[in-house]
């Protein structure tokens, strides 16, 4: 059976990208396979691990729990879009680097996007709020201590940058 293809246009990391996809193409696969944006990782592919988290119109969502066709004419930010305009590490990336918030790095893209959206809404979180914010992301290396530190540090870097 030949599948119907849909033409979609998505604003990804500030660039307008066109695609032609079957309806069942997951957003995570669209980003990785069609757009070659392999920073978004695919772990469990059923919404549990959080590795594929991206921002849809500024809100963190699971890319494996969305069809690419349903984000037509909407805005996506992936981990590739978190760097500063001059190409240096963004605040959250910098914080994870400084605090050793990653080991193998597989889960990291999901943490970076989740934490970025979280700090947009809550720029000065408590440690408890930081833990709650990352509760939906699995990391099997770090034991989370350094990730929590990274979230707190990212908040600090962001508020320093603003002052």
């Amino acid at each position: 059976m030949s599948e119907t293809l849909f033409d979609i246009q998505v604003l990804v990391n500030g660039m307008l990208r066109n695609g032609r996809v079957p309806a069942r193409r997951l957003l995570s696969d669209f980003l990785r396979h069609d757009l070659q944006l392999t920073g978004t990782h695919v772990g469990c592919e059923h919404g549990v691990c959080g590795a594929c988290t991206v921002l849809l119109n500024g809100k963190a969502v699971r890319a494996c729990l969305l069809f690419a066709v349903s984000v037509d004419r909407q805005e996506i930010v992936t981990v590739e879009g978190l760097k500063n305009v001059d190409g240096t590490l963004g605040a959250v990336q910098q914080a994870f680097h400084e605090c050793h918030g990653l080991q193998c790095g597989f889960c990291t893209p999901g943490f970076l996007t989740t934490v970025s959206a979280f700090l947009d809404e809550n720029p000065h979180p408590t440690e408890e709020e930081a833990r709650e914010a990352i509760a939906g992301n699995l990391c099997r290396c770090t034991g989370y201590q350094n990730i929590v530190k990274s979230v707190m540090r990212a908040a600090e870097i962001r508020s320093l940058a603003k002052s």
Partner: protein
Amino acid sequence: MKPAPFEYVHPTSREGVLAALAESGEDGKVLAGGQSLIPLLSMRLASPKILVDINQVPEFSSLKVTPSHVEIGATVRHEELLNSVEARKAVPLLAQALSYVAHPVIRNRGTCVGSIAHADPSGELTAVLSLLDGVVTVESRRGSREVNGVDFFVGPLESAIKPGEVATRVSFARLPSQMGTSCTEVARRHGDYALVGVCVAILLTDEELVDRARIALFSVGPTPIVIDVSEMLRGSRSDCQRWQDAARFIASSVEPETDIHASAAYRRNLVEVLSNKGLKDAYESALKRMREGQ
């Protein structure tokens, strides 16, 4: 882990959705937030022939808090309802229960009406609907009908929605100012499916004594179980032995099952412990509401 092929339609109006569902009949399935449906498709536990995406219908995203009701449209996301101060004032149980629904990232996309239509027996919102007897508006091209919360759940993952129909709205009556509510659950991991959960609503008299008390249990049976313990608790205050007796009575009147997550005996124990806590929390919440005069 990829969904099987399906036909996809994304109408932009209510009429378009109803026409697409009428045409697809048994083969059609509604896609709202997709946070439960898409995993089922990816694991190929479900493979509907036609998906009707309702996310592009502007009127379905309406959340209204009127003097008498909270009316939740079909594509209102969990997070939006959770963050609505007005809705929280009118029906505090909604926010109390929503904070247990998955994680914030899932709640950004998942819909409240979808959680109810999915009829998962471990869903927090299914218990809220049953306890407060919310009303689900179900529409098809033949017309619209309203289903009361008590009649909505037929079995696990099975609701009163028939092929060709879609739940377009769920509405809850504003709670009286002398009513308090609570939601509490135990899960292996926060955000995961509850092993057992309870929602409670307690109505107080002017003298701050219990007048009515009802509890809804989830993850305990094929559908939410509502038990009225008003007779046992009428006239009580929070420091009374009768709370423990009521919790014991609730635990003795359910027949939970053993599965890989928990044994029946453990679940029954959880029902007692959580009922006791939930009843007291709801009583405290009622006192607070009365004193704040909401």
